[in-house]
């Protein structure tokens, strides 16, 4: 037995004989002219893209759809056509033209585009195969695929029932092949020096995508680990499936509302499919970005109404624009600021120029009227004190009057400026809800710029200062019956979700991808246990210690 070390790229374990992809074999199909070969390649790529889409992998399928566009690229075909006219064989001509285009992309000072170069070469090779009438490479039995590198289209094309695992000599965890392997649930290890030479004579390989190891001729101990993993995996899959249709709750049935964070109308239906009970944070910046002029009331209303309609009776919290100097817009004139996160942003912009905010408020009121939502939930970001709330309230009242609709908006605030927590008892008398933005709250409370990588270790909201702030907010909100939600990343973190529930937060909103893990974590503790853990963490010396305590409990 011999163990090779690489980089873990997709979790899981599997053992099977190694397979090098069979070199493309002549399929008996006739040679094709360039045009026909391009049509065939596009057809294959579209089919593979559709297959991935059917499997619930829209992002990955779009990679293949982008490749289909490359295959039919007029400039690529023109370059190949010139070579053919000069006497080059058709398959060589398309490969050379692809190489030329790939070289251009590789010459750009941009890492993401270097990956596109590989996509172009892959497309050209596919067309060349079609020209020669060759079938795509395929596995002949259940195997661990061993290769130097693998293109996404090849990965997608392989019979998934035969692909037990993936071991690559090259590649990185961010390569498409790794992303696809993760999405398809195929264990993968990449970046394994000496793999091809070592694996060529082996009868069996074990890929450990959790640890980033590949075992040649695995022994009894490895097999035992594999069996253990398979049992554990089955248990986890069963648990997540069972939880999908169940609400977010503790083991003893204490319910916490599960909201989705969304950034555009396109995010609405995936969030609903994932089981969101509502939207805890609808970011509205998308409607302002990339424009030369501010979007008018109608444009905004259409976008907001789309989301409100999609969610029907379920609550949608629309956050007012959080725009500032960190992302300058052509129609928002700002003096240069040394620190835009502490600058004139979000509702602070309205003090100087209320029209931008007023237009948005009218658009929301109008959207609510059109979508039949009588009490739309509006959230103001960057509120520091009661005067801020009253300023937004006054603009909101004007907006309701201007639109003249029978709509009663509920104004809540995003709690991220620490001063808002200090005066929370004042705010609680005048707002409909609190929603904590834990990322910004943490950076403001700990005076640690979250865009500064050197301070990344100080950005953990499990810090006792953040937890105590949340506890005091919950206490201030309670007598007034104001619900406290969390829409920052902490809510989507299993350990964070347990502690927040223990602190009395009644709604967690997060990216839908986190739903499963958060449901599982919360279902593993009772409310009393979550409360006890939270109480203990309030006295932790730092965030890392608190996190370790919670993880220890969740693992046990």
């Amino acid at each position, binding site marked *: 037995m011999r163990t090779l070390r690489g980089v873990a790229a997709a979790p899981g374990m599997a053992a099977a004989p190694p397979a090098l992809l069979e070199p493309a074999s002549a399929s008996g199909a006739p040679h094709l002219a360039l045009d026909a070969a391009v049509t065939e390649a596009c057809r294959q790529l579209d089919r593979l893209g559709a297959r991935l889409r059917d499997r619930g992998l829209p*992002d990955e399928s*779009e*990679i293949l*759809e*982008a490749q289909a*566009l*490359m295959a039919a*690229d*007029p*400039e*690529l075909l023109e370059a190949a056509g010139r070579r053919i006219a000069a006497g080059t064989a058709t398959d060589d001509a398309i490969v050379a033209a692809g190489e030329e*285009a790939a070289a*251009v*992309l590789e010459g*750009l*000072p*941009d890492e*993401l*585009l270097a990956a*596109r170069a590989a*996509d*172009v070469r892959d497309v050209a090779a596919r067309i060349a195969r079609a020209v020669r009438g060759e079938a795509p490479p395929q596995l002949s039995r259940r195997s661990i695929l061993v290769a130097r590198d693998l293109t996404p289209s090849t990965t997608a094309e392989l019979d998934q029932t035969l692909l037990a695992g993936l071991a690559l000599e090259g590649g990185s965890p961010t390569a498409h092949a790794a992303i696809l392997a993760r999405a398809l649930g195929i264990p993968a290890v990449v970046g394994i020096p000496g793999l091809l030479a070592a694996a060529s004579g082996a009868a069996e390989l074990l890929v450990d995508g959790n640890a980033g190891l590949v075992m040649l001729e695995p022994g009894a101990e490895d097999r035992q680990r594999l069996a253990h993993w398979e049992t554990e995996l089955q248990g986890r899959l069963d648990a997540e499936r069972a939880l999908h249709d169940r609400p977010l709750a503790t083991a003893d049935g204490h319910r916490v509302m599960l909201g989705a*964070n969304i*950034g*555009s109308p*396109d*995010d609405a239906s995936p969030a609903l499919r994932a089981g969101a009970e509502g939207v805890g*944070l609808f*970011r*509205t*910046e*998308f409607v302002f*970005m*990339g*424009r*030369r002029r501010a979007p008018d009331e109608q444009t905004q209303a259409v976008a907001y109404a789309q989301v409100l309609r999609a969610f029907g009776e379920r609550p949608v919290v629309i*956050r007012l624009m*959080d*725009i500032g100097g*960190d*992302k300058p817009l*052509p129609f928002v004139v700002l003096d240069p600021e040394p620190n835009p996160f502490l600058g004139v942003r979000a509702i602070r912009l309205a003090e100087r120029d209320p029209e931008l905010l007023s237009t948005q408020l009218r658009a929301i009121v109008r959207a609510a009227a059109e979508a039949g939502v009588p009490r739309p939930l509006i959230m103001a*970001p960057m509120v520091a004190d009661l005067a801020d709330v009253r300023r937004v309230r006054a603009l909101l009242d004007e907006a309701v009057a201007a639109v003249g609709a029978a709509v009663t908006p509920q104004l809540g605030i*995003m709690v*991220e400026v620490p001063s808002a927590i200090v005066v929370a008892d004042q705010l609680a008398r005048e707002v409909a809800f609190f929603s904590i*933005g*834990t*990322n*910004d709250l943490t950076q403001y409370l700990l005076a640690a710029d979250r865009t500064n990588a050197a301070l990344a270790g100080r950005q953990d909201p499990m810090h006792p200062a953040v937890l105590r702030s949340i506890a005091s907010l919950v206490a201030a909100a309670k007598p007034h019956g104001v619900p406290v939600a969390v*829409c*920052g*990343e902490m809510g989507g973190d299993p350990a964070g979700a347990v502690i927040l529930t223990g602190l009395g937060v009644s709604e967690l909103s997060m990216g839908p991808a986190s739903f499963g893990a958060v449901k599982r974590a919360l279902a593993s503790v009772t409310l009393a246990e979550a409360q006890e853990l939270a109480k203990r963490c309030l006295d932790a010396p730092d965030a890392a210690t608190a996190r370790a305590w919670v993880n220890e409990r969740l693992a046990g």
Partner: protein
Amino acid sequence: MAEATITVLNRSGLHARPAATFVRTATGFGADVRLCNLSRDPGRMASAKSMLAVLGLGVGHGDEIRLEATGADADAAIDTLLALIAGGLGEGMAEATGE
């Protein structure tokens, strides 16, 4: 000829998926549509209907691009492409903001 200048503000610029959306839309018009990346190489124009040419401009987040179109539906092509870019090319833009 119709023309316009706009800043590309979706997360990853005119990379794979957003570029595909852009090219697919441009291809739907009869007009000849070309663009250049003012922030990187203002002298180099590329066809908006060629995925490889668009990728080759290396348009990243925050880059300013110039669109030009000639032909019967040139105005419609420019308006549609501007709206598409303004809308984020089907890609989220707000990930890094707020909370």
